[in-house]
């Protein structure tokens, strides 16, 4: 499909990208500003970065975010994988439909409703157990697993559909027990979905503010919550420095992911070319 973009279209594209990136670029530029002005650049300086690394609460929040993201992503990936296998192979259509519908609820519901509903559950459970301050790492972990699971499952399920159903039979035919067949044949086939689900779970966890905000306690804050509480006051440019770091980390992650995917695709492409010859 060879269709040329017109000059007008290119201008539109450029304007859109400028709109999308200006706010972030401005933040990044001002993170190197030596004064705390948000409109005048006084000179280059790394002092806001130094400030940032002196801020113990932010560093702790950063550590919490990563710990929570890793643990919740690992649990929801394993949990989601097992559940996706069960959902895919179950013969009971109504059961399957019920599970998939429930799976959609957290994706359709506004985050704020998911957040307050879980908060109410935890508070309610807390009063039943006569405990105060139930909100903390545990409730955050449960909440993160809960909103990640649907994405993990929806990333894995289509892989089963794309897989040749006879592969597992072929494995059993050659002597695999059903469990061996799963690990030797099925899992390698659905692995891209599992990896995509895990990455999505991880980034959703890193990025989540709304749900975390309602189910977190004072002693376990994540970075988005920390940023939120800081932006409630008048902000100093160390926030810009933080944004810049987060932006760059995300950028590197995204590019790395893309490179990995491209390499995988190119590999199979080269093979296909061989056939053509």
């Amino acid at each position, binding site marked *: 499909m060879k269709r040329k973009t017109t000059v007008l279209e290119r201008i539109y594209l450029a304007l859109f990208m400028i709109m999308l990136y200006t706010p972030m670029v401005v933040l990044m530029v001002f993170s190197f500003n030596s004064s705390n002005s*948000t409109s005048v650049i006084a000179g280059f300086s790394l002092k806001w970065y130094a400030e940032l690394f002196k801020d113990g609460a932010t560093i702790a929040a950063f550590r919490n975010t990563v710990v929570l993201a890793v643990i919740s992503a690992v649990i929801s990936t394993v949990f989601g994988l097992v559940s996706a296998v*069960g959902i895919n192979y179950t013969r009971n259509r109504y059961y399957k439909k019920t599970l998939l519908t429930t799976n959609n609820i957290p994706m359709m519901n506004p985050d704020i409703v998911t957040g307050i*509903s879980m908060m109410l559950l935890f508070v309610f459970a807390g009063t039943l157990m006569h405990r105060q301050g139930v909100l903390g790492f545990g409730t955050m972990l449960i909440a993160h697993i*809960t909103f990640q*699971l649907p994405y993990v499952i929806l990333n894995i399920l289509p892989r089963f559909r794309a897989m040749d159903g006879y592969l597992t039979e072929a494995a059993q035919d050659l002597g695999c027990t059903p469990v061996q067949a799963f690990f030797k044949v099925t899992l390698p086939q659905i692995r891209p979905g599992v990896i995509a689900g895990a990455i999505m779970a991880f980034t959703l966890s890193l990025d989540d503010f709304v749900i975390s905000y309602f189910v977190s306690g004072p002693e376990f804050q994540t970075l988005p919550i920390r940023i939120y509480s800081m932006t409630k006051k008048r902000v100093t440019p160390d926030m810009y420095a933080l944004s810049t770091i*987060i932006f760059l980390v995300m950028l590197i*992650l995204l590019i790395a992911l893309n490179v990995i995917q491209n390499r995988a695709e190119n590999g199979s492409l080269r093979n296909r070319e061989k056939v053509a010859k």
Partner: protein
Amino acid sequence: MNNRTYNAITAPYGLWMAVFIVAPLAIVAYYALTDAAGHFSLENITQLSLYTDTIFRSVWFGLVATILCLVTAYPLAYIFSKTKASTQTVLVMLIMIPMWMNFILRTYAIMVLFEDTGIINHFLQSIGLSPLHLINTSGAVIFGMVYNYVPFMVLPLYTTMTKLDYKYIEAGRDLGANGFQIFKDVMIPLTKPGIISGVTMVFVPSVSTFYISQKLGGGRYTLIGDVIEMQFQTAYNYHLGASISLLLMVFILVCLAVMNRFGDAEEGMVV
């Protein structure tokens, strides 16, 4: 492995979803329909009338933001689909990168730009123009929504457009349709799944947001999300907060149901 094994390994998942998705929603309904003493009460529901303005404002802002997103994103997605495959990859990445940035930071970045002493006004003054009052306007709030959520509109539209066979457009031309007719009778119907998906993904967060209005509206444009947040985090009236949440949830579900009737339910979600 037989069917019973498969049913058994989904049991923990079913239980998890029942406890952490279904039960919380039931508790929301319970709080919405009881008073502080735990007795059945419709007081929280009747109190909703106090928030009529807020509710209408949220829906109005959400609608305007969604339409603006659609109008901006549709041509953009079309342009994307026309470029080379390698360019498309780069463009999609450019759209996704901001999504990976926390929306609080994104919103905050707009605030920095829009402030009365911010960079835009500084720039305007430096070229001899009078400053504009941007921050704390309804326009700023809506811009914040569009800015934060427009990628959710671009991506599904782009996905459906790449699947769209250009031959349909050629066939339309061949049959004598003009540009507008092709747009109305060929493009729109064929990209409907993407439109529905994008509209859903922009409208739901826009209508329920609570941070954007606080930062960019300066507290003058309270939205449903702000009221809910206030009830749970500062006013501690969980019962009222629950009833507003219930209303929001029911409203969204009705909207989704109506949307899905317009399009093929199965194709409704293109992520």
